[in-house]
């Protein structure tokens, strides 16, 4: 193992890690807002990837152009999921935690079934997109352009998100609602509206990630499952509810995954991520940046 291989894998690990951070951001946002883990998060990613694929296949719209469209579509989808399902799941008085898990998990199964039904279980991929297959050489390190673009998008998304949460009225309403949903009702903020918008925003973030992932990853009905687990681990590692903890944890997860792949057989690369998660929560039971 030469120094070059190590630098090369750490560089790709960093790029992938930023993307993991972007995938996990929506999950962390929704959890922070209302203490709900969306067990259909991976399926949100899956439909975003399909949307990107079909916009390319039918209308020849490049993923770079369709990414904002897909994010917008996912925004609507996320808000609808909140209004139709999650709104009722959080009302449950008995077994509240269990109901949330299984209501969103049931949704995930339905979405996978629908994808199999309408799109068949075939693996699909986008060929000849603007960025697909290109690499960039930076001081002797080769970086795949789609992943590089994804990483830059992730950084941009987090910067925008930071200002959005801290500087806009909606952001303040989000913060206020997560602090005390009862009190905000008294000052005229509709809790359901804030939650619906929060779900929309969370889904839009994973939609953005999905559009970029579709450039370099296969699209199939079960694609969400493997990324969803990484997203849960990322969010928990960062500390539930902390959007920026998820960002930092995403980078750690990407780097750990790349390092593990250097030491162990590639099929075991996730073991490193899992081991780091367990190690961190055994020492800090609320994750790295969790305050809840």
């Amino acid at each position: 193992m030469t120094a070059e291989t190590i630098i090369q894998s750490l560089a790709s690990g960093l790029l992938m890690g930023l993307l993991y951070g972007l995938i996990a951001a929506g999950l962390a946002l929704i959890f922070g807002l209302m203490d709900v883990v969306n067990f259909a998060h991976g399926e949100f990613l899956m439909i975003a990837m399909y949307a990107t694929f079909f916009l390319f296949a039918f209308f020849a719209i490049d993923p770079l152009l369709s990414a904002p469209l897909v994010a917008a579509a996912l925004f609507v989808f996320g808000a609808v999921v909140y209004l139709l399902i999650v709104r009722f799941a959080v009302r449950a008085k008995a077994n509240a935690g269990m109901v949330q898990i299984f209501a969103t998990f049931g949704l995930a199964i339905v979405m996978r079934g629908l994808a199999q039904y309408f799109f068949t279980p075939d693996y699909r991929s986008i060929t000849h997109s603007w960025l697909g297959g290109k690499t960039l050489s930076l001081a002797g390190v080769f970086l795949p352009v789609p992943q590089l673009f994804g990483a830059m998008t992730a950084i941009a998304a987090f910067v925008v998100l930071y200002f959005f949460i801290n500087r806009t009225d909606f952001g303040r309403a989000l913060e206020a609602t997560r602090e005390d949903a009862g009190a905000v009702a008294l000052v005229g903020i509709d809790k359901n509206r804030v939650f619906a918008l929060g779900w929309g925003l969370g889904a839009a973030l994973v939609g953005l990630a999905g559009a970029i992932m579709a450039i370099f990853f296969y699209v199939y009905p079960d694609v969400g499952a493997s990324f969803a687990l990484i997203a849960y681990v990322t969010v928990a590692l960062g500390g539930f509810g902390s959007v920026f903890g998820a960002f930092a944890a995403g980078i750690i997860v990407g780097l750990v995954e790349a390092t593990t792949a250097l030491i162990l057989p590639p099929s075991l690369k996730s073991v490193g991520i899992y081991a780091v998660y367990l190690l961190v929560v055994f020492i800090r039971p609320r994750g790295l940046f969790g305050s809840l």
Partner: protein
Amino acid sequence: MDQDFSQRRRRDLLVAAVLAGIAALVPLFVKDVYVQNIMVLTLMYAALSQSWNILSGYCGQISLGHALYFGLGAYTTALLFMKFGVLPWFGMLGGGLISAVIAMALGYPCFRLRGHYFVIATIVIAETALLLFQNWDWAGAALGIDIPVHGDSWLKFQFARSKLPYFYFALALACIAWLVTWWLEDSKWGYWWRAVKDNPDAAESLGVVVFNSKMGAAAVSAFLTAIGGSFYAQFVSYIDPESVMGFQFSLLMALPAVLGGVGTLWGPVLGAVILIPLTELTRSFIGGSGRGVDLIVYGTLIVAISLARPEGLVGLFSPRRKEIAR
């Protein structure tokens, strides 16, 4: 309440005995192998879900990694038989004990975690074990193990011609899991677990050793789950890591209890009796041609029941039960 409670417990025991008796007679009238197969699976899931319910329902420690113990049971039995010629009956006991010990070893650090941190830890540990088994050549790696069938034998617990022995074993397993739960419900452990579930801090201050309660629940739950795994290995006579240790399995084990009623005596049984035949029937009638229609039906059902009946379907039968299961 005491009077009521002991009366209910006697009635539960009676109902269970009658149901088990009826179930034991069913194969005399139902000769169709396909239907018998569904009945075996239903009983197996009832037993598994009952075991899961002890840790996750009564004690409130939601595990989505029980596939680990199921897989350990299946692999211990299969490997001991294949590599050392140990009879499945001993393998079954060995698998159960190994699982119980591992559950406590894992519980030692994990039970400090709360809420979603705990749930994700259980998923991650089971996934790690899955990946390790997929890469463990001695244990057949990703291809798994094909258990050679030498013909019908109770000694080796394998039957090629008839499903009936499997049916009666699964029925016995479901009854044992139910009886263990029934017995624990009114033991000091049962009360401790419910206290730990409701409010661990209050329980601790009243003298319940929260940590030991969780460890006890984990050991019993893992032991019974592993026995189910051993049974499954003998029943299908072929196992591979994905089919006995995959995340899907952890969910399949939890679902009957969730739909029937978490932390209740009858929830897992009721959930399994409704869910498993429905799953198997949709899979064979519309699954093959419809490409995923079975998933759509199944998922819709899960969403609908968890929204409409968060306390589970047992609530439909007895409104008082909820208050007792508190």
